[in-house]
């Protein structure tokens, strides 16, 4: 396992630079939008990656609720953190593209609002994890993740009732896309997914180490000789 990590890291680096070259130089320039359209190669892969990570988070939360597996909890934490980062990338790149193309930064359209609400839910998820005391955090977080997942279809239908301005999804949405562009898009997505997996993995190892360390510290505090405690309390009393 230890040897897989650097291999994945190198692979991700190569893929990311190749994807950057493809997106900025090799991909054909869009007819009407011009070079602004190239942001699409970052916007869409980030969105897909974020949604996959949120889905993994939901799945891991369910697993935790049923089996109370600590590993599932760490996976849920890690995917939520990295997912929020990718979701932020989506929400930042979207308006940069929309301003020259639509003439507005933001609109309350179906996909935009859904992404924003997802982002809000997962930020509140991370806030909950930060604020709750350690022993109960995984359970409360898992419950909130289930609530968030239940909320998504309701958000979808509530905004679906409004007019939809966002361009139709290029895959399976009836839109047409140049095969060359699709190729660049998929390469970027692959690179982004590898990058997300890499970050999740190292964050996972960090979290495991952190929990081990917390446990060791707690044990050491228990095993510490009584005398030092009584000494400090005596000096405190004297002070």
């Amino acid at each position: 396992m230890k040897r897989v990590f650097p291999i994945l890291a190198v692979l991700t680096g190569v893929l990311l630079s190749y994807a950057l070259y493809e997106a900025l130089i090799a991909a054909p320039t869009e007819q009407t939008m011009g070079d602004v359209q190239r942001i699409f190669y970052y916007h869409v892969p980030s969105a897909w990656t974020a949604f996959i990570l949120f889905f993994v988070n939901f799945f891991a939360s369910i697993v935790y609720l049923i089996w109370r597996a600590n590993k599932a909890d760490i996976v849920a934490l890690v995917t939520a953190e990295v997912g929020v980062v990718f979701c932020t990338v989506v929400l930042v790149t979207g308006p940069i593209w929309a301003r020259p193309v639509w003439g507005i930064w933001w609109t309350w359209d179906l996909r935009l609002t859904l992404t924003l609400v997802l982002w809000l839910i997962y930020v509140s998820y991370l806030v909950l994890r930060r604020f709750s005391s350690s022993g109960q955090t995984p359970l409360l977080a898992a419950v909130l993740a289930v609530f968030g997942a239940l909320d998504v279809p309701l958000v979808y239908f509530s905004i679906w009732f409004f007019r939809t301005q966002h361009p139709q999804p290029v895959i399976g949405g009836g839109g047409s896309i140049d095969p060359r562009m699709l190729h660049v898009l998929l390469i970027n997505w692959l690179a982004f997914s590898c990058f997300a997996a890499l970050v999740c993995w190292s964050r996972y190892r960090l979290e495991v180490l952190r929990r081990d360390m917390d446990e060791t510290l707690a044990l050491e505090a228990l095993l510490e000789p009584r005398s030092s405690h009584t000494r400090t309390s005596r000096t405190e009393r004297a002070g």
Partner: protein
Amino acid sequence: MSAVASLTRATLAKDLRLEWRSKDAINSMLFFSLLVVVIFSFSFDPTAEESRQIAGGLVWVAFLFAAVVALNQTWAREMRNQVLDAYRVSPAPPNALFLAKVVGNFIFVTVLQALMTPLFIVFYNLRALGPAYQLPIVAALGTWALVVNGTFFAAMSLRTRSREIMLPLLLFPISIPALLAMVEATGAILTGEFSARFWIVLLAAYDLVFTIASLFLFGFVLQAE
């Protein structure tokens, strides 16, 4: 089932009696939403036509903020003297406690709405141009949506530091579709420009989904150690 019903009734009666004698929640909610109404009316100073357009949003934002005030106090009473811990070790079903709290909060917020509605009419010069009989339906469904999730998240934030800040942070993002539905439905009824039916159905679906989810998951939250 009868055990759940009788426990729910007992807890609800206790909460209502306590509230009737102290009037803590209802007074703070009333004054709070009064302040919101006055400040909004002050800062926007709308004409009758404008206020019809924005009233749905104003009313529900006021009720949402006021409901948070009441919801934050819901469980505080049970924390004193370790009532909640006693409840946890008793064989009583957790859902009975949860249902009683939800119904109690629902009653408080409904009373608040009944008292605030005349004020809104006075300050914003409101008159429904659409079918007014739908307004109570929207109010009941919307209040239930706020209260069922709010009571649940208030129980969750009991286990966190600075729990009073935690509740709105958890409640508002999840409530976005419900809020949108309440605001749009109220706006539709007040202006009479389009039908509120879709939003009422959506609200009902929201209530159903989250009531079932809360009843399923409340046991986990209560037993969280």
